[in-house]
């Protein structure tokens, strides 16, 4: 089954991308992506720029509303995601546990909708 491993990061996690911890931060994700590829479960993903770069659009009553910032102002924000293809939820959760950010932020695991063959 295919799962999205959604990496929710704290403000401090986002800061770690750019301060003296930046090398550790990026090396951590690089190593994680490499491990997914080596295991043959990697099927995509992307890192996202921090929430200050987000803009949210809604159409209400036919009118476009543009709001600055992410859609919800919460402590942990989506920082990126990996797409993995594994046997079951337990395997997906085992990969989520190894994801950088699990120790400081939260990793949400969601199955992808699979189109009928």
């Amino acid at each position: 089954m295919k799962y999205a491993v959604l990496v929710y990061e704290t403000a401090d996690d986002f800061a770690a991308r750019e301060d003296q911890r930046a090398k550790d931060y990026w090396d951590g994700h690089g190593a994680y992506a490499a491990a997914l590829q080596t295991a043959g479960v990697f099927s995509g993903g992307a890192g996202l720029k921090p929430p200050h770069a987000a803009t949210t659009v809604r159409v209400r009553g036919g009118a476009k509303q543009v709001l600055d910032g992410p859609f919800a102002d919460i402590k942990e924000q989506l920082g990126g995601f990996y797409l993995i293809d594994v046997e079951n939820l337990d395997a997906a959760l085992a990969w989520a546990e190894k994801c950088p950010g699990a120790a400081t932020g939260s990793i949400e695991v969601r199955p992808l909708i699979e189109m009928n063959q």
Partner: protein
Amino acid sequence: MSAAALAERVARESYGRLLALLAARTRDVAAAEDALADAFAAALTAWPRVGAPDKPEAWLFAAAKRKLIDAARRAQTAAVGEAEIIRGVEELEADMGALNIPDRRLGLMFACTHPAIEASVRTPLILQTVLGFSAERIAAAFLLEPASMGQRLVRAKKKIRDAGLSFDVPDPEQWPARINAVLDAIYAAFTAGWSDPLGADPERRGLAEEAIWLGRVLVSQTPQESEALGLLALMLHLEARRPARRSSDGGFVPLDDQDVDAWLRPLIEEAEIVLRRASALNNPGRYQLEAAIQSAHASRAWRGETDWDAIVLLYRALSELTGSPVARLNAAAAIARRDGPAAGLEAAEAAGAQHAVLREYQPYWALMADLCAKLGRRQAAQAAYEEAIAREPDEAVKKFLAQRRDTL
């Protein structure tokens, strides 16, 4: 046996096994339940006309499998595609082999205990999927609204289907976190059967034996889990008393008055062996304590008297471990036997004062009535018997309490 009776028996004995098998590959428990219900309905129509098949389980499985595939074809938007379901049932057929239907119930039980499933619905989910309990019956046992219980079960089944939960028995390191819900479900099934000692209610008949069987399967797969052993020992001790729990005319016989010669010695002996295995693992828990209490009662068969001191201590330990008001009440009952009715009454009143829920509990009033009677407080005893009778669903126990009241 008539075709309808056969269908009823197979439904009772095979429900969980067939459901576990059908759901294991597709992960769609609700679809498997629907398919199985249709298959049983088809059996009730077909078997009386053409005769019951040689292998009723295999017949039901084949019928349910067809229904499952039909349903997948109809549901265009199914999360699990038709091809996947057909592949799943083909693998199932390979598993079925010539004769033996593999038992996947333990895997299904563990799927129901996955941390991805809301904790409070894990035990009800096992009762429904593995033992075929209706949402109404589960709701009654858990003191919840049937509609609310039904919704929670539906949500949990959707989660199992959509999140891709595994139906394999997990690795041993995960058992401690997950086994409690399995143990609680098996024990809930056992007590449902136990509360109907004569097998008068077709819905509850055979449940105690079924629970013991599941307990044995669990122990064989998780031999190092002391609480699984404790639960099996507890159930065996209680089951051993079945022949002594009702008199020849169906009357209720309390534990103290039971004829120890009617107890089933082989079950008691097995319970003792299983409990010793549990103790050797040095990891005590609720079920081991409860089994030890029953073991102390069972020793009356050899020693001629009950070790009330041990029972008081065990109930106190159980009460401390679980915070259970019932354990506290039972400790009070044991104190009455050890130290006399005045001490017992004091302990029971203290328990009732601290746990208001006990005042809605039949055994609380039965104990109060008995102790008041022994202390010569006739009016208080009479009032307490009335309270107890009003809260007892079982006719035999009601009659027993009324007799006690009338002999005051």
